[in-house]
């Protein structure tokens, strides 16, 4: 059976350092859609083991109240990732985020380790979902095959810090250095029927710039954004939640298309706008996003 969480709402994924008990004990109070418990870059090399014990007990004993628990594991080039996978599965993590993914084979390696761990710890096979962080030009070039690499993999995420280094540039704040990656990744993800997530915005003093970037990536088609601070959650959720006007219009479009289809009419107008079947999926998506965000209770 397909995991029902493959397509859940993921507007915000908030990074938290697994090594810091004060950070991981109650992040659900800020209501992100997902938390990303980090075993990778945020954890010092000599504390990798320590972070795993904290992660295990947090997953087992803290009630995150429906917030999805993603764990970012160490890269496949390190000696850490296999034990990371074991502790994630044993603890019951919802998702493993694969760092520095460059090929479909990278996903297959992690998938095999996850399946072995699910059997070892008697977790239902298929429970642990995967997502892939693309952090290099090679990873972005292979985005489509990475998206199609596994039934467990629900999406891909741009990791801007390492990606900009690989391009031999720097993060400018204008987004120009990420333009190609963002466009390539969203096209690849949509072509494969997967989700796509944007990189973090690290300047917490520039909330206006942050809001502009969130609006841009929403318009590009992204499903959500990685975040580094609870202060960023409200902005993302506000921008990603359909407005009342959008919901009313989407509802009208869906109803009219269904009604007109039964009468054999293909093209018509709604509120003065020309509408045909091409608008159906987009309108349904707005309604399901609104429903998931808790602002629409209709039956469509």
């Amino acid at each position, binding site marked *: 059976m397909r995991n029902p969480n493959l397509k859940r709402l993921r507007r915000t994924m908030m990074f938290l350092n697994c090594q810091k008990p004060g950070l991981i*004990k109650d992040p659900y109070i800020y209501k992100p859609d997902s938390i990303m418990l980090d075993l990778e870059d945020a954890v010092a090399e000599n504390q990798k083991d320590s972070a795993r*014990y*904290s992660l*295990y007990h947090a997953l*087992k004993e803290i009630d995150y109240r429906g917030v999805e628990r993603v764990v970012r594991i160490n890269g496949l080039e390190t000696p850490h990732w296999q*034990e990371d996978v074991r502790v994630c599965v044993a603890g019951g993590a919802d998702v493993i985020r694969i760092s520095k993914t460059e090929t479909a084979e990278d996903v297959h390696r992690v998938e095999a380790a996850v399946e072995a761990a699910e059997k070892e710890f008697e977790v239902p096979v298929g429970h642990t979902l995967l997502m892939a962080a693309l952090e290099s030009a090679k990873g972005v070039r292979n985005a489509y095959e990475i998206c199609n690499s596994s039934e467990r993999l629900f999406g891909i995420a741009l990791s801007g810090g390492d990606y900009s280094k690989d391009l031999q540039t720097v993060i400018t704040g204008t987004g120009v250095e990420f333009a190609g990656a963002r466009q390539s990744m969203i096209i690849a993800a949509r072509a494969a029927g997967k989700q796509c997530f944007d990189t973090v915005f690290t300047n917490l003093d520039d909330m206006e710039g942050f809001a502009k970037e969130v609006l841009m990536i929403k318009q590009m088609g992204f499903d959500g954004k990685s975040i580094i601070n609870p202060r960023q959650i409200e902005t993302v959720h506000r921008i990603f939640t359909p407005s009342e006007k959008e919901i009313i219009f989407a509802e009208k479009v869906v109803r009219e298309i269904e009604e007109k289809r039964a009468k054999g009419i293909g093209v018509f107008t709604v509120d003065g706008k020309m509408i045909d079947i091409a608008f159906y999926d987009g309108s349904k998506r707005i309604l399901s996003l609104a429903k998931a965000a808790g602002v629409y209770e209709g039956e469509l």
Partner: protein
Amino acid sequence: MDIKKSAIAGTLESSDAQVTVEPGNGKIDFSLDSTVIHQFGNQIRAAVLETLKRLGVSNVKITVVDRGALDCTLKARVECAVFRANDQTDNLPWGGAIK
């Protein structure tokens, strides 16, 4: 498990605990310094001793400096210190002795 050498885990940051284990003298020698010792001293002691019991450690000198850690953090720090004292970082018994 034996405590083969001294090992330390955790920090002195708020919500954390620093746990030090050293080879013992045939028993559990427990020492606690906590900002909340009057309210939670007994609970901290119970959590630490229960964790040591689950790990099969009965010969250890253990020092806990608590800064308001939850039980789950205390357990994590004790386990980390004990496994570090044995130089074991892989193939850990998640869900077994670590619970």
